[in-house]
C-alpha cells in the first residue's frame, strides 16, 4: 500500500467511497507509519490508536450506509491545542498535564460532523509560543527533511506529520505565523484564514485577538476541502463573523489572468537566505507567466510589526494564562503551605521558560504607568498596519512574499537568542495583526535540499482568492516533487 502516501484527501475520498479501501485499513496504515517513523520525528505527543480505530469503524459503517461527509474516514492529526472531549489536551505544557476536557472545540465538532478520524495529538511549542517546536514540555519535533533541524513552529508537529505522511492532513493554529512558517519549512501547504472565519471556541488561547485555526495539507485542493469543513460562523464565539462561506474547491483552476499581484518592497530585506531570494524571483516569474502583473507596493509600517506583536501577544497571553493556577485542573505540586505558595509552586514548575518570559513581558506591558506607552501605543500602530493592507489591496488582488526569511535552522541554534527566534516570523506576523488570510505553498528547495515556501496574502474573507492563486501557482511553478528520505 506504499502508494497511499502519494494520495491526497480528494483522491482517498474517492477510494473510500468506491470501497477500494476502508477507513480502518487507512487508519492502520497511518498508525503503522507513525510507529515506524515517528520515533525519529516526534511529531505526535500522543497517538490515540483505539479512539482512531473506533472512529474509522464508525466511518466505514457510514460509508456503507451511503453517507458522504467531506472528511468521512479521513485520518487527521490534531495540534494538541484543541479541546477534545475525553482526550487529554495539554497545549504541550506540564501545567495542563492530565487535563481531559469535558467538551469539544467547535473545530473538533465540525471535523466530527464530517466524519474524520482522530489519529493523535500533534506536538507544538508550549502554548504555541515559539517558532521551532523546541519549547514543548514533551520534547522537540524534528524536521523530516533533516532530522538535525527544527520543523518550524509553533505547529511544528502538524507540519512534520503531513511532510512525513504520518497523516493525510492536519490542523494547526497560527498566532504570528505558526501555520505558515512550519508549512514552509516542511514543504507542505498551510493556511491561516481571516480572523473570525474559523471558530476559536475550544482553541486554547495564546493571544485572543491574533489566534486563528487552519489546515496543513499536501496540496491546495486539500486545503480547500479542509477549509470547507472548518470555516463558518459560530454563535459560541463573539468575534466569529456571520458571513456565508463559499465552496472553496470552486476556486481551484480558475486561473489568475489579469490579476495584479503586489510585491511589498519592505519584505525583500537584508538577511533573506540567498536561495529563498532566488526562489522568490522564480515565483514572480511564475505568477507573471500565469497572466498576472506583479506590481511593487508599500506596506510602510512593516518595520513596527515585530515590536507591536511582541507587546500585544504577550499582554493577552499574560491574562489568558492566568487561569492555570493549580486550583481547578491540570498540574499542582504537593506540599504548599498556603494559597500564594500553591500559586507560585504551580506556575513555577508548570510553565516553561519561554512561556514565563512572555507572561512577564505581557504583565509589564499592561502595568499601570506603562499601559499607555506599550499596549495602547501598540494597539494604535496595529490600526496603521491594518490600514497599510487595506490601502495595498486597492492596488492589487493579492500579495506575494517569502513565508520565512530562512529555511529550517538547526536544533538549538536560536534557543538562546529569543530575538533571532522572533525574527523567523517577520513575514507572517503582519497578517495576524491585520486579521487577513494568508497561505504558504511550496516554492522549491535550497541547495541543501530544504523546502522553501511562498506566501500569498489577500483581503479579509478572501480565502477563495488565496486558493485560486495558490492552486494556479502550484500547478504551473513546476516545483520538483520530492519526499523526505525517512
Amino acid at each position, binding site marked *: 500500500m506504499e502508494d497511499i502516501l502519494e494520495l491526497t484527501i480528494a483522491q482517498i475520498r474517492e477510494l473510500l467511497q468506491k470501497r477500494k479501501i476502508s477507513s480502518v485499513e487507512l487508519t492502520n496504515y497511518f498508525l503503522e507509519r507513525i510507529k515506524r517513523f515517528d520515533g525519529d520525528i516526534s511529531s505526535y505527543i500522543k497517538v490515540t490508536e483505539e479512539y482512531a480505530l473506533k472512529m474509522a469503524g464508525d466511518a466505514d459503517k457510514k460509508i456503507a450506509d451511503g453517507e458522504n461527509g467531506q472528511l468521512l474516514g479521513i485520518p487527521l492529526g490534531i495540534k494538541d*491545542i*484543541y*479541546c477534545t472531549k475525553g482526550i487529554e*489536551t495539554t*497545549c504541550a505544557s506540564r501545567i*495542563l498535564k492530565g*487535563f481531559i*476536557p*469535558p*467538551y469539544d*472545540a467547535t473545530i473538533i465538532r465540525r471535523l466530527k460532523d464530517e466524519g474524520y478520524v482522530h489519529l493523535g495529538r500533534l506536538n507544538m511549542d508550549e502554548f504555541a509560543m515559539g517558532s521551532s517546536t523546541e519549547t514543548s514540555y514533551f520534547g522537540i519535533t524534528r524536521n523530516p527533511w533533516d532530522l538535525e533541524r527544527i520543523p518550524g513552529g509553533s505547529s511544528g508537529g502538524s507540519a512534520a506529520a503531513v511532510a512525513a505522511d504520518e497523516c493525510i492532513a492536519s490542523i494547526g493554529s497560527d498566532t504570528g505565523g505558526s501555520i505558515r512558517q512550519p508549512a514552509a519549512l516542511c514543504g507542505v501547504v498551510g493556511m491561516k484564514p481571516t480572523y473570525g472565519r474559523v471558530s*476559536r*471556541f*475550544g*482553541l*486554547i*488561547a495564546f*493571544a*485572543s*485577538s491574533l489566534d486563528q485555526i487552519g489546515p496543513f495539507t499536501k496540496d491546495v485542493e486539500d486545503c480547500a476541502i479542509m477549509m470547507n469543513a472548518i470555516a463558518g460562523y459560530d*454563535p*459560541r*464565539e*463573539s*468575534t466569529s463573523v456571520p458571513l456565508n462561506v463559499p465552496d472553496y474547491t470552486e476556486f481551484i483552476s480558475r486561473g489568475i489572468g489579469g490579476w495584479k499581484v503586489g510585491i511589498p518592497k519592505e519584505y525583500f530585506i537584508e538577511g533573506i537566505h540567498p536561495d529563498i531570494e532566488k526562489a522568490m524571483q522564480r515565483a514572480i516569474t511564475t505568477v507573471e507567466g500565469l497572466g498576472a502583473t506583479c506590481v511593487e507596493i508599500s506596506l510602510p509600517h512593516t518595520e513596527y510589526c515585530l515590536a507591536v506583536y511582541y507587546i500585544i501577544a504577550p*499582554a*493577552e497571553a*499574560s*491574562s489568558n*494564562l*492566568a*487561569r492555570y*493556577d493549580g*486550583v*481547578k*485542573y491540570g498540574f499542582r505540586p504537593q506540599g504548599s503551605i498556603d*494559597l500564594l505558595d500553591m*500559586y507560585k509552586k504551580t506556575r513555577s514548575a508548570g510553565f516553561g521558560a519561554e512561556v514565563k518570559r512572555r507572561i512577564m513581558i505581557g*504583565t509589564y506591558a*499592561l*502595568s*499601570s504607568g506603562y*499601559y499607555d506607552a506599550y*499596549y495602547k501605543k501598540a494597539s494604535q500602530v496595529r490600526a496603521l498596519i491594518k490600514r497599510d493592507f487595506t490601502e495595498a489591496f486597492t492596488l492589487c488582488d493579492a500579495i506575494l512574499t517569502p513565508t520565512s526569511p530562512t529555511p529550517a535552522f538547526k536544533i538549538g541554534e536560536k534557543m538562546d537568542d529569543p530575538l533571532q527566534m522572533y525574527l523567523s516570523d517577520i513575514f507572517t506576523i503582519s497578517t495576524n495583526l491585520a486579521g487577513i488570510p494568508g497561505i504558504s505553498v511550496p516554492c522549491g528547495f535550497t541547495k541543501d535540499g530544504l523546502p522553501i515556501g511562498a506566501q500569498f496574502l489577500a483581503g479579509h474573507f478572501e480565502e477563495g482568492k488565496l486558493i485560486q492563486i495558490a492552486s494556479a501557482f502550484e500547478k504551473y511553478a513546476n516545483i520538483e516533487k520530492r519526499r523526505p528520505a525517512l
Partner: protein
Amino acid sequence: MPYEPVIGLEVHAQLLTETKIFCSCSTQFGAEPNSHTCPVCMGMPGVLPVLNRKVVEYTMKMALATHCRINEACNFARKNYFYPDLPKGYQISQYAQPLSEHGYVDIELDGGKKRIGITRIHMEEDAGKLLHDEHLPSSYVDLNRTGVPLIEIVSEPDMRSTDEAVAYLKRLHEILVYLEICDGNMEEGSFRCDANVSLRPRGEMMFGTRTELKNMNSFRNVQRALDYEIKRQQCILESGQDVIQETRLWDDSKGETQSMRGKEEAHDYRYFPDPDLVPIVIDNAWTEEMKKSLPELPLEKRERFIRDYQIPPYDAGVLTSSRALAGYFEEVARLSGKPKIASNWVMGDVLRFLNEEKRDIKECPVLPGSLAEMIQLIEDGTISGKMAKDIIVEMYRTGKSPQAVIEEKGMIQITDEGTLEKTVAEVIAANPTQLAQYRGGKEKLFGYFVGQVMKATQGKANPQLINELLKEMLAKE
C-alpha cells in the same frame, strides 16, 4: 473643630436575568455547589464568553432611571488578579468605556430634597464563593455565582452624613426593585454596598484621607458602620493624627470597623479591553425602546399620588414603597372610587395584618376587589365602619368576599326605621331613671342610650339612624 463627613458609595446589584452574563447557566441562588456551572463560567481552557443581551438592557434601564448618559459604544475590560473564586484569573468588567455615566438621583430628607451624583454604572460578572472548612487546612470553591451579572453603581462623593448615605442607598434599592432588575436582597448579597468615607474641617474644599468600608449587609449595618467610622476618624483627627488610607471591614458582632491591612496590598489590575468580546454599540432606537419599557418610577408615582389622590406625603411614601403595593392601592382606589378611604384601609388594616405575618402584598388574601366592595358597603350604609373592622379580619383570615362574610355572620346593618324605632322605644322604656336625668339636663347620657341601642341590636344598627331616632324620641314627652 467641627468636621464634615464626605461619603461616596459603590453599589453592586445582581441582575435578575435567568441566565449568567456570558454563558447559559442558571443564576438561581442556593443550589448545590457547582451545579450551575459549565466550561465557560468555570474558566476552562479555550472557552469564550458570549454576552447576554438582557444584561445590557437591564443596565440601560437603571441608567435611564438614574438620568445617566448612555454611551453609544462601550466595551468590556479584563480586571486581572488571582483568587480561587475567580476561575479565569480575571474578572470581565467595564473600565475605560462603561455603559453609562453622569447621572443622579434625588433623595428626600427632613430638610428637603438633595441631588446625589452618579459617576457611572457598568456591567460586570460576579465571582464565586469560597467555603472554608473549619477543621481541615483546605477550602472549597463554589462557582455557582461565577458569571452572575452585576451592575456597579458608583456615586459621586456627594453625601455629607450617614442619613444622606442611607437615604441614597434606599433610593437606589427602591429603583432597582421597581425596575424588577434586582431582587434587592442584601442578606443573600444581591444588593451590596461599599463606602468611601473621609472627614474634613467644615468649610474646607479639599477632601481628607478616605477609608473604604466593606462587609455591610443591611441598611442598619451601613448606618452603624458609617457612624462608627465617622466617629473613629474624628477621634484620630482631633488627637492630631492622620487617617490611614485603607480598606476596613465592618464587624457586626463587635460593632466596629477593622483594618484589612496586610491582606490588601495595592493591586494593579492591569485592565485592558477584553479581546474575546466585541464593543457594544447602542443606537438611539434601542435606547428609546428601553425608555418606553420603563415603569413609572417611585418618586414620580409618589408625587402623582399626592396630587391626584389628595393623600398626605407620608401615606404616598408608604403606598409607593413597592410597585406591587402601589398597584394594589390604585386598584382599590379605582374600584371603590374613594382613594382617600382606600388609602386608610390599605395603610391601616391591610398593612398591619401583612406586617404581623411578614407577608408581602402579593400574598395578601384580601383581594383589591373585595376591599373595594367593602368600602362601598360602608358608603351605602349596608355595614358600619365598626362592623367593617370585624369583617376585614374575617376577609383576611378566610380570603372571602365581604358579602360572604356578612351573610355568614348575619351582620347586615339594621337600616329599617320601623324595626329600629321599636328597639329605641324599648330601650327608653327600660331606663326611666336615666331618662329622667337626661331630661333634667344631663345631656351626656345621650351616649349611654346609643350604647344601649347598639347592645340591643348587637352592633348591627346604623349609628346615624340611631342618633336621629334617639334625638327625636328622647325629646318627645
